[in-house]
């Protein structure tokens, strides 16, 4: 292969052409020779078949009349066929009837009797078997054995001729190919010579004449162009070299400067490495601190959770105290009114009448009928009686109110007491009762502010919840609604409470026609510290949302905007644990 690699293109092409031609010719000759061989064999066999047919036919009478001489005479007639070396006739009793051997060197034997005609090719001989028929019945069998040596000889002969033709054709092909190839290889050879000359003499001004437009022509054109470009670059390089020499000095200076800069840079790198180490240390300390802070925050968070729970309880307590405070206000007002009424009572005027009557005790009848003042007394007493009666009515009314308020305080406190012990315990709860309790706690002042409460309680299943937590949420929602209604300028102050079943969970809607919520505020409504009311502490809704979540529920709000009321929706599962 190495030899082939270094061979000239002309040599390579010649080898390729010759190989292909040789291969094609060899295949062609092989096919033709094998076909000829097969045909020759076929011809020999078919010839033998015909001869055997004739001999078998003419031997029928010999066999029928046991005429061995005649039979042998028939077999002798095969002498004219050079390839036949042996012939015999066997009777149906499997006895050799007649035999004829043409080969003096070899002794052949007559094969066993077999009725069928057949051909056997073995060890350079072909045997043809033919039945000897008489009236369509086999009376014996003829065997003719022919040598195929003639065929082998003729094959060898034709093989030699084929080889001679093959060699002759190869020589002719080589001569023609060489001539034809020159058209292709000559321009390439010239191009090669030119390239060598350019390379040796560095003369880029040389050019080759382009004679054709084929690939070689394109190659020559490209080579010429390349030489042109190299020539241009060469001159440019010379110029650049001169420039480079002049700038070499400045480059030297620059190199010195660079070296100095490098030293500086190395120092800086060292410094930075030191700082990085320090930073690493700091970072590790920072990580420890972060861990510390994280655990502190965790503790704090747990504390906040506790505080939130306490705050929730405080929320309820605060609600209770607020309500109690409100009622106490009313109690106070009632007491003031009673005190004022009692202070301003007209009963004092009666004393003056009693003094006047005591003074005229002796002459009461004349005093009442004659005296001007005495005449006024019955009229005065009648008026006083009316006034006192009114005062009494008024005082009774105030006292009833007072008694009611005190009862309300009592109720609120006893309710608070009933919830106080249940914190953290799941209980069976009737939702409507829970809502009613929440309403009662918030009831104070509803009438006073003209708030109309509408209740739509649908029958829902019992809830298994932390009663206290659920109440906290509802109180908070009703309280917020009440404040929203109180602060509102809307004429219709309506608080609607709906209880219904929503796809297997309890749904409590607290709808008010109060101040409403701005769109931007809705998303922050449940965040800690968000408050819209002046006296609010921004904790109620945040805590309610957390508690609702603890109970496995949710709180959401819908509002069409300021002045358009709000709808708080509390969803609670009937049994959080069953759902889990």
């Amino acid at each position: 292969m190495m030899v082939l690699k270094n061979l000239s293109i002309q040599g390579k092409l010649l080898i390729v052409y010759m190989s292909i031609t040789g291969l094609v010719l060899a295949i062609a000759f092989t096919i033709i020779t094998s076909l000829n061989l097969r045909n020759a064999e076929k011809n020999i066999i078919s010839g033998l078949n015909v001869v055997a047919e004739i001999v078998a036919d003419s031997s029928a009478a010999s066999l029928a009349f046991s005429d061995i001489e005649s039979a042998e005479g028939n077999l002798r007639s095969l002498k004219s066929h050079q390839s036949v070396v042996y012939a015999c006739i066997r009777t149906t009793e499997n006895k050799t009837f007649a035999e004829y051997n043409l080969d003096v060197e070899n002794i052949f034997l007559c094969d066993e009797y077999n009725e069928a005609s057949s051909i056997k090719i073995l060890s350079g001989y072909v045997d043809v078997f033919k039945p000897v028929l008489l009236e369509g019945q086999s009376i014996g069998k003829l065997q003719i054995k022919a040598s195929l040596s003639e065929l082998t000889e003729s094959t060898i002969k034709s093989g030699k001729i084929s080889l001679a033709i093959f060699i002759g054709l190869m020589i002719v092909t080589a001569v023609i190919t060489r001539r034809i190839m020159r058209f292709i290889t000559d321009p390439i050879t010239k191009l090669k010579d030119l390239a060598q000359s350019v390379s040796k003499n560095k003369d880029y001004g040389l050019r080759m004449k382009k004679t054709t437009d084929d690939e070689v022509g394109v190659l020559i054109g490209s080579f010429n162009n390349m030489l042109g470009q190299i020539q241009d670059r060469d001159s440019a390089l010379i110029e650049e070299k001169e420039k480079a020499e002049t700038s070499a000095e400045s480059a030297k200076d620059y190199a010195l400067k660079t070296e100095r800069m490098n030293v500086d840079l190395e120092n800086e790198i060292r410094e930075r490495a030191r700082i990085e180490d320090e930073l690493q240390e700091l970072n590790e300390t920072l990580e420890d601190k972060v861990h510390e802070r994280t655990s502190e925050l965790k503790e704090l968070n747990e504390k906040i959770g506790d505080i939130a729970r306490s705050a929730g309880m405080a929320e309820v307590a605060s609600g209770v105290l607020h309500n109690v405070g409100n009622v106490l206000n009313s109690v106070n007002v009632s007491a003031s009114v009673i005190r004022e009424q009692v202070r301003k009572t007209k009963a004092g005027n009666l004393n003056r009448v009693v003094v006047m009557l005591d003074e005229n005790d002796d002459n009461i009848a004349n005093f009442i009928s004659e005296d001007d003042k005495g005449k006024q007394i019955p009229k005065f007493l009648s008026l006083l009686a009316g006034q006192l009666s009114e005062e009494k009515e008024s005082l009774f009314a105030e006292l009833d109110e007072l008694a009611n308020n005190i009862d309300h305080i009592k109720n609120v406190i006893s309710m608070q007491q009933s919830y106080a012990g249940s914190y953290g315990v799941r209980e069976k709860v009737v939702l409507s009762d829970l809502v009613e309790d929440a309403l009662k706690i918030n009831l104070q002042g509803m009438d006073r502010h003209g708030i109309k409460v509408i209740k739509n309680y649908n029958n829902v299943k019992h809830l298994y919840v932390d009663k206290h937590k659920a109440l906290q949420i509802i109180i908070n929602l009703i309280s917020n609604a009440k404040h929203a209604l109180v602060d509102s300028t809307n004429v219709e102050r309506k608080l609607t409470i709906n209880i219904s079943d929503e796809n297997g969970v309890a749904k409590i809607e607290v709808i008010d026609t109060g101040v409403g919520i701005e769109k931007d505020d809705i998303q922050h409504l449940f965040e800690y510290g968000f408050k819209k009311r002046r006296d609010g502490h921004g904790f109620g809704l945040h805590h309610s949302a957390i508690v609702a979540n603890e109970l496995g529920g949710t709180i959401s709000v819908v509002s069409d905007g300021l002045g358009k009321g709000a709808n708080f929706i509390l969803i609670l599962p009937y049994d959080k644990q069953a759902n889990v």
Partner: protein
Amino acid sequence: MNRLGLNFRSYLLLILVSMSWCGSVQADLSREYQLKAAYLLNFARFIYWPEQLISTTENFNICVIGDNPFADSLDRLSDKKIKNKNIKVKYSSDYNKNDKCRIVYISKSKEGAFKEIIKKINNNTVLTVSDVEGFAEQGGMIGFVRIKNKIKFEINIDKSIKSNIKYRSQLLEVAEQLR
């Protein structure tokens, strides 16, 4: 010892030898006619029989005129067929046209009368065969001859042609002599 100088044992031996010779002659004779019977069948096979003629008879009749020298050799051929007709052997003392014979074998016992018989046959398509010496020469068609102790036969072509008997060339090739 008697007059001839032969004792009893010698007589006995002579008698035994004579008997065995006679037996051997008898056996050769039987073998010869077995072969001739087979030849009769083969003659029939090497002759172009006109289809019309064959179709007129039910069987292919072989007639033996005179004494039967074949014993049962000919009868054994009855399972063979010529032109798809069963072979039937008829024995008689004289030729009878009504027997519709295709082959007539004239026995040696009729040596003196064979010409008469041939005349009676009158060139009809009937093959005449005989052992009689000079049979083919004297108006018969195929005559058996013995040459070098082998059974051969002679054919009278002219007579055969006249009687409308056509042989296959192979038969003529193996015939000893053609007349």
